[in-house]
């Protein structure tokens, strides 16, 4: 047993840290986050052409670097720490994973090299139900000559207004929950798809609405077996959930570090406020949350690797993802919230970055299910003997 980063993984993490410390500065984040696109295309080009991050866990056969989920998570953690504004999560952790899990040989060969090289993409599956399981899929498809016709709308789609490739989940008319779901991969400029930016409270991560009005999708866009797409989609969602917890871990760490830095400078009653026990104990609680998050995220990353490569522990993916998401969602919120409190008045100003972390904590907490959602998922496994991924009765 050796549950720590290898030297190579450590290097990947420190390289990511150094690059983002220089490029994803507070100024850069604040400049990107007010644009409709939501990111700086030049920085995205550097990420793709100098760092090769989108290629990281894509197999070499498809133009990737063939590294694993642990390396990916080590990088995502730094992106969360530096509030990176980029279509990375949507392209790599949603769309590339979808192709890896559900794509056929032709689809992988066609799309993965593009994504590895910097073409942007995303996954759309949620309607407006506010749920994150199979019941969230409410766009419907019907068979048509040479393909399918899709109608309905998606909300909360990460980078949905800018992505160049779309993976879409839709269901057969009259089907419910886990039955009747199919996945499709198409170019985003396919006729009949209207895309609209949904401005969000967390300005560092973009969301969009997609409206499909009788959109024609050719047969070859179907991923896997028609109407039997749920198991693949469930796995894609679990893999994305693991990825987002890494962002949360990095953010929770930075909320702690930047707060402690401030506490060491701020003087009241003649001493730095870091010397007051009431303050120290809050900071200690924040560190407990960070280190416990780190243990959960790295474990989930190992399990994600096993799941993608067919290892013996791959069956733990749903549980490991829910454990990490339940814990990290609450931990990031706690740390960012305490961060504002411990900063005092300046924590409430736009000038200090802690507010940006507080908002990113909220958006990552909600996305793919908050703590309560994932705890209920675990409760079903523990108490009801339910198979993973069944639909749930809790609202999030």
């Amino acid at each position, binding site marked *: 047993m050796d*549950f720590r980063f290898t030297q190579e*993984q450590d290097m990947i993490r420190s390289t990511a840290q150094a690059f983002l410390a220089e490029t994803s500065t507070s100024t850069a984040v604040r400049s990107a986050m007010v644009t409709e696109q939501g990111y700086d295309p030049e920085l995205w080009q550097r990420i793709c052409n100098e760092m090769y991050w989108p290629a990281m866990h894509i197999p070499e056969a498809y133009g990737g670097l063939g590294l694993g989920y642990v390396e990916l998570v080590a990088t995502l953690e730094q992106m969360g720490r530096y509030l990176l504004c980029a279509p990375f999560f949507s392209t790599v952790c949603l769309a590339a994973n979808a192709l890896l899990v559900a794509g056929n040989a032709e689809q992988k060969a066609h799309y993965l090299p593009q994504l590895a090289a910097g073409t942007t993409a995303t996954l759309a599956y949620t309607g407006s139900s506010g749920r994150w399981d199979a019941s969230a899929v409410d766009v419907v498809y019907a068979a048509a000559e040479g393909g399918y016709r899709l109608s309905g709308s998606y909300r909360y789609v990460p980078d949905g207004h800018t992505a160049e490739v779309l993976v879409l989940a839709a269901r057969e008319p009259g089907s419910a929950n886990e039955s009747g779901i199919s996945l499709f991969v198409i170019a985003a400029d396919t006729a009949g798809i209207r895309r609209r930016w949904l401005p969000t409270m967390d300005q560092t991560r973009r969301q969009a609405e997609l409206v499909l009005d009788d959109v024609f999708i050719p047969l070859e866009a179907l991923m896997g077996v028609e109407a039997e797409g749920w198991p693949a989609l469930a796995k894609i969602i679990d893999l994305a959930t693991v990825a987002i917890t890494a962002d949360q871990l990095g953010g929770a760490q930075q909320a702690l570090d930047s707060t402690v830095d401030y506490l060491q400078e701020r003087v009241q009653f003649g001493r730095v406020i*870091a010397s007051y026990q009431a303050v120290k104990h809050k900071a200690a609680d924040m560190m407990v949350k960070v280190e416990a998050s780190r243990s*959960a995220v790295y474990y989930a990353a190992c399990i994600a690797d096993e799941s993608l490569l067919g290892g013996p522990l791959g069956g733990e993916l749903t549980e490991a993802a829910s*454990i990490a998401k339940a814990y990290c969602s609450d931990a990031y919120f706690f740390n960012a919230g305490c961060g504002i409190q411990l900063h005092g008045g300046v924590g409430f100003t736009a000038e200090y970055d802690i507010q940006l972390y507080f908002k990113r904590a909220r958006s990552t907490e909600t996305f793919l299910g908050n703590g309560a959602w994932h*705890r209920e*998922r675990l409760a079903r496994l523990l108490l009801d003997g339910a198979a993973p991924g069944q639909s749930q009765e809790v609202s999030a």
Partner: protein
Amino acid sequence: MKLSFNAEDEQFRAEVADWLVANLCGDFECIRYRGGPGDEHSFVEQRKNWERKLHEGGWTGIGWPGEYGGRGASIEQQVIFNEEYARAGGPGRMGHIGETLTGPTLIAFGTQQQRERYLPGILRGEDLWCQGYSEPGAGSDLANVKTKARFDENSGQWLISGQKVWTSLAHESRYCFVIARTDPASVGHKGLGFFLLTMDQPGIEVRPIEQITGTSEFNEVFFDEAVCGADDIVGEPGDGWKVAMGLLGFERGVSTLGQQMLFQNEFDEVLRVARENGAAADPAIRQRIADAHVGLRIMRFNSMRMLSGGGDDGSLSREAMIYKLYWATWHRNLGKLAMDVLGPESEILDGAPYALNRLQSLYLFTRADTIYGGTNQIQRNIIAERALGMPREPRG
């Protein structure tokens, strides 16, 4: 990162498990799962015999070097032993203070004569030890010990006078190690000595302390010119603090996975009750049960990090520094959850005068977890000061 143990370690695991199945039965059936925290008063004679049985199987002092009669087992193998021991329902160890504290201390700091005199009895499971650290005025502030040690030139012996408190197993032990002040003018951690005393002597009186559980795991120990041979001081007069703190370094996390196996047993009992009495249908209880599961799984991942990593220079890594605060708080919360799952039945005893059932005992005893071995408040000070670099508390 690698999550599994290697083949050699797995073979060791099988050896341990087989031996336990073959030996923890018959006369020892009654002590399975007994004698743990809160239950240390039960089946004392059988558990003493069990210590000797363990020795026959070569399972005492497994982490000690071969030259001192141990197995020189690796950290992984010690972890595996503890895990399998707990899984099999191995009883609370009567000999654990001698094996995990006295032995390693003498191996590190003792003289050859001390090792020859004391180590064999510990290995044989015959000589039980207790720990004389805390005093009425020296709890969290351990360096404030007042117990005095005076060298009597006439008899050529040390004479120890003072009072110790919270001394587990004092009434069952043959020996006690004690920190006492060798320099009467000294304060704090200077001027202390580390002494090895025989308990059966006129100068020592043991008085049990009745706890909130109605049982008496702890004692007060009074020393009135208790004698200690000139050869039975470990290190020099004045080295006591260094030797005592050296003990803390011997706890490298090898017992943590075994401890968690006990926690898992308790948690499983809570799950069983919840399924039986219908509490499993209550959404609020479901959230808390899932939260407890998340907390316990992360405790394990955190231990895996502790065991894999860092601390090559002897310092505690960040995941190790949070461990006590994390497990103690988790365990205390489990006690509360157990009562809420039991509902009104939580009040009803097994019988008069005060026969607690297992979960009631858990509820009451876990109030000690966040106090002994460094209170939660002391743990937060340590985390803030040593891990986060915040200013030290002023000391009078």
